[in-house]
């Protein structure tokens, strides 16, 4: 069953030099209990996509369906209800926690606001349960964020997001500020919680090995556009879009025996302000032709494998 369906979602920002197309006509579906990974380079609009989905900012156009209901525009009361179902884990566990709240209070705050609990003791008990769940040791529950290391702080961030039993969580680069040994602990925790509670994730990251590990399906974004989407297995086994190919081949491998065949991209990501019509990747694409400067469509090239590239058939 589809938990979230996004149709032609757009998010533009007015900036001094024009309009910045952060998310431009993006459509996809996330099934309940699965993880959709969103990858792309910095500035491609992946975080904006996440925050727009959970109404931290209003979309400019398009539609968001949550459990079949249109949640694109919500009034205050509806938004309050929607926020109990959707939550976010932020990238930086150092700046996303209130430095003046201790850990227990950080977890208890959403519980109190929800009004689901009759007494302070009930809130306290629920907070204890959540802190047990995400593995925050008892001795640390009175501590303040600055007293914890990054991995534990991110556990607090996860605990806070889980407090109201949401159905959908946007994970915005939750492990990119952590060292590998700690990163593995947090990834395992997220996957365990998903199994236990049937959670649905939108997992935003620039780290391709992490996204492969955690995602069922993946969206590849480039400058606000969705260039390729399919299952995680398929994407890594058979990337089709020239950008995806370049992106995958750019990951340094830890295998000493394998020599990488690299598709080296020239140039850098261009500006998303007042973009020209057509494929945004054309400026860096080794296969670009005039046809690429025409508006592009996301097409199903193979079953459940969508690519936005007009030359995909020729390239083979």
């Amino acid at each position, binding site marked *: 069953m589809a938990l979230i369906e996004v149709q032609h979602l757009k998010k533009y920002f007015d900036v001094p030099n024009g309009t910045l197309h952060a998310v431009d006509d993006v459509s996809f579906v996330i099934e309940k209990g699965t993880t959709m990974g969103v990858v792309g*380079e910095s500035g491609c609009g992946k975080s904006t996509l996440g925050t727009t989905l959970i109404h931290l900012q209003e979309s400019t156009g398009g539609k968001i369906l949550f459990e079949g209901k249109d949640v694109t525009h919500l009034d205050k009361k509806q938004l309050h209800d929607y926020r109990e179902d959707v939550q976010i884990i932020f990238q930086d566990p150092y700046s996303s926690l209130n430095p003046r709240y201790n850990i227990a209070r950080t977890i208890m705050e959403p519980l109190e606001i929800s009004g689901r609990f009759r007494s302070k003791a009930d809130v306290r008990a629920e907070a204890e349960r959540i802190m047990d769940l995400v593995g925050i040791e008892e001795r640390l529950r009175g501590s303040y964020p600055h007293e914890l290391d990054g991995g534990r702080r991110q556990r607090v961030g996860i605990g806070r997001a889980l407090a109201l039993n949401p159905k959908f969580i946007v994970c915005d680069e939750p492990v990119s500020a952590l060292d590998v040994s700690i990163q593995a602990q947090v990834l395992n925790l997220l996957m365990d919680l998903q199994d236990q509670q049937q959670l649905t994730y939108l997992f935003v990251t620039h780290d391709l090995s992490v996204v492969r590990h955690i995602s069922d399906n993946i969206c590849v974004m480039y400058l606000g556009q969705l260039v390729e989407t399919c299952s995680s297995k398929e994407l890594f086994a058979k990337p089709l879009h020239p950008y995806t190919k370049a992106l995958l081949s750019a990951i340094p491998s830890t295998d000493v025996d394998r020599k990488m065949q690299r598709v080296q991209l020239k140039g850098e990501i261009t500006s998303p302000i007042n973009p020209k019509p057509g494929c945004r990747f054309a400026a860096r694409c080794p296969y670009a032709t005039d046809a690429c400067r025409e508006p592009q469509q996301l097409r199903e090239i193979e079953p459940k494998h969508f690519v936005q590239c007009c030359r995909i058939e020729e390239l083979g």
Partner: protein
Amino acid sequence: MSADNGKTVKSEESTFLDVRDLTVQYTSMGSVIHAVNGITFQLKKGETLALVGETGAGKTSIAKAILRILPDVSAKSKGTVIFNNTDLMQMKEKEMQKIRGHKISMIFQDPMTALNPTMRVGKQISEVISAHRSISTEEAVAEGKKMLEMVGIPAERYYEFPHQFSGGMKQRVVIAIALACNPELLLADEPTTALDVTIQAQVLELINDLKERLNTSMILITHDLGVVNETCDNVAVIYAGRIIESGSKYDVFKHPGHPYTNGLFGALPNMNLDSDRLSPIAGLLPDPTNLPDGCAFAPRCPYVTDKCRQGTIPAVEVEPGHFCECIRMDEIRKER
């Protein structure tokens, strides 16, 4: 470079950097932080050594101690750093200034803060050249433009300011500054960590290419094992300020010895395997103000015995040129 199955054979060439018993301590609020605790390594001409480890392992302190740019007030460093037969640690500050940026230079981690925001980028390159060579201003400008082009930035952008550059371009400017005087030794501190993968690939390619052309030796500091594999000949794994494992890249990656190194590989999501769970290393780095006796990794080590918690742990040569600081190495290898 790729003689017998990827191993690097360069032993005939003489050692030109010899670091012995290097220690760095910081004082902060009355307590002493033991950042680097007796590091010894050698580097040959043209060789690239990776220093790998987690945040707080002491990697950057090692590089800063070699270049003597640690803060005077709070940091103390001891040991010998023999570079081209002179001990840098004994050198007068005046002499040292002639070496910095000329013979040895450093690429800093964060390109956003390493550049002066109020100075034109080109000037920041020419400045280094003028400081170390007696040439006219015009020549320095011409050299600066040449360096910009070498790192793939058009010379006409010489007169722009850092904020007009993207992250990847800023990092390339930082590299151009570091390479401006053809240094013999390059200390690269996480040169690509702040960059996207496609830009990282470009920068690594650039560094590899320049290294080969100028025969520069390099110490690359990173926590990314993939980057190590793409650029380095030898690897030293740092844990709590000590080299706990060192050897050729091939040996360390193929047969990691130390339980910590093994743990690092296990914690990485593997691109080529479909594993369901990662195996994280339990626990955290020890408190550097209060390091345990014996092996610093003992509190997190699955193979720990009482003997691990006593005295200093000697390095064992597990293969020719492959060293491990672990007393249970032989037993652990049998168990696996």
